[in-house]
């Protein structure tokens, strides 16, 4: 009986301390949710870059639509897209646009993106842009890891279940890819491993 009582007390204590540790994390947690698709584009030399498609949850979409769909016609015209880019996209440039690339283990900083577009369709917002990232193909495999995450974890980014990544103009190369958690990267005080596209390619022999 005594052992059971001590066991119960110890269990309560562990639970109590666990609660304290959990309660101590006061930073942001996901409030915005993105489903993404990557479109990996090759040119004659090798990798040219990748297109990014972010589909936002309807709540964030409605927030942006309320503020920036000026004429409230449920679509974003070029002038409105420019405002969205300025007020609800460009700020993340300091976080490398949430895109963290490693080329053969070396970090590649995303300093700029091009062809930004914001689309509002059926109340759902999506961002589309291209990240230039030139990597020449050789006989040996080049390893690329593309992890897309918000390091502050205010935004949770998931790969789409259907067609999460596509390859364009890849016929001249041997390409292997997989989507899995990047165990070498941890965010949010080391508690979360972001999902990443692991890509390797080489010239066809």
């Amino acid at each position: 009986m005594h052992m059971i009582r001590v066991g119960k007390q110890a269990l309560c204590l562990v639970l109590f301390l666990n609660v304290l540790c959990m309660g101590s994390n006061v930073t942001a947690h996901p409030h915005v949710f993105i489903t993404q698709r990557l479109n990996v584009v090759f040119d004659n030399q090798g990798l040219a870059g990748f297109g990014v498609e972010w589909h936002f949850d309807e709540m964030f979409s409605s927030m942006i639509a309320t503020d920036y769909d000026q004429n409230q016609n449920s679509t974003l015209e070029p002038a409105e897209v420019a405002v969205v880019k300025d007020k609800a996209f460009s700020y993340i440039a300091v976080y490398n646009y949430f895109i963290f690339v490693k080329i053969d283990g070396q970090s590649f900083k995303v300093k700029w993106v091009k062809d930004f577009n914001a689309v509002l369709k059926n109340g759902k917002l999506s961002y589309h842009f291209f990240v230039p990232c030139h990597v020449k193909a050789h006989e040996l495999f080049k390893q690329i890891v593309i992890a897309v995450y918000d390091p502050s974890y205010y935004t949770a980014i998931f790969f789409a279940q259907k067609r999460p990544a596509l390859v364009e103009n890849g016929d001249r190369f041997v390409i292997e890819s997989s989507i899995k958690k990047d165990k070498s990267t941890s965010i949010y005080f080391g508690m979360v491993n972001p999902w990443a596209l692991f890509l390797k390619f080489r010239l066809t022999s």
Partner: protein
Amino acid sequence: MRITFLLLCLLTVCIVVMLQPVFGQNPFTAKPKSKTQHMATHPAAKNPFLSMIALWQHRLNQKMADLVREAKVTNTVKPLAFLLVVAFAYGVIHAAGPGHGKAFAVSYILSQRPRLLLGMLFGNFIALFHGLSGIIFVLIIHIVLQKNITGTLEEVTRITQIISFSLISCLGLGILIKSIYKWIKSAKGSHKHHLHGPFLSALVVGMIPCPAVVMVMLLALSMKLVGLGIMLGISISIGMALTITCLVVMVISGKAISLKMLAKHGRLAITLENLIETTAGLMVASMGLLFLAAVI
């Protein structure tokens, strides 16, 4: 051994608490203040629970949006009951993740010796104020002032954070000074130490608008469903109240059990209780000041 274990745990908890940075801001719509707080850190402790919470929240978020749309399109109240249940579940899970004043609530409860009912009221009030604040600010900004939500809300949130963190710092300093006074006077630990003013303390912690409630409100407002938005905001708040209250109850019970384990040591139990009170007061004050410094 037990005492050493307890003290080590207490120290670990303090260190973990002190190392946490500021409340998050929407990185898409808020001008970045400092990049350092957003940098990834090295692995510390994997927590699959957090990833699961994010996934569940994503699913519930989608479900809620679908049901709100269904309610709008069909113009019926048929999906309402299910929608409120989903909103409640969203609140429960949302508050299970980090944030929402739980760190302050836990520290504050640790520094007191509240009756269980008062502690539960305190937990409920925090969540309700947190949610109501979101509802009220959205209504004021969107309907009364008719201003741009994203920028104005960031500013409103910042102001409420400054007020809240200032008051929390004062509260923590008050607890700390009182506790130090006790040490100096070598007074015996009071066993009639109850939670004072759970309503006001909860208001101080919960006045910062909950972003999840804000976003649900905005979705409903975009479909001109103000009443539904308010109901959903309240349901989410009730869900959050359940989680935060469970947490508070666990802390109260945990503290009571820890002290009971040491009760036979008499004087030592009193010393430990005073030590917990001092440390918790220091934690409340430090967190308040740290967060205040970060938002100013």
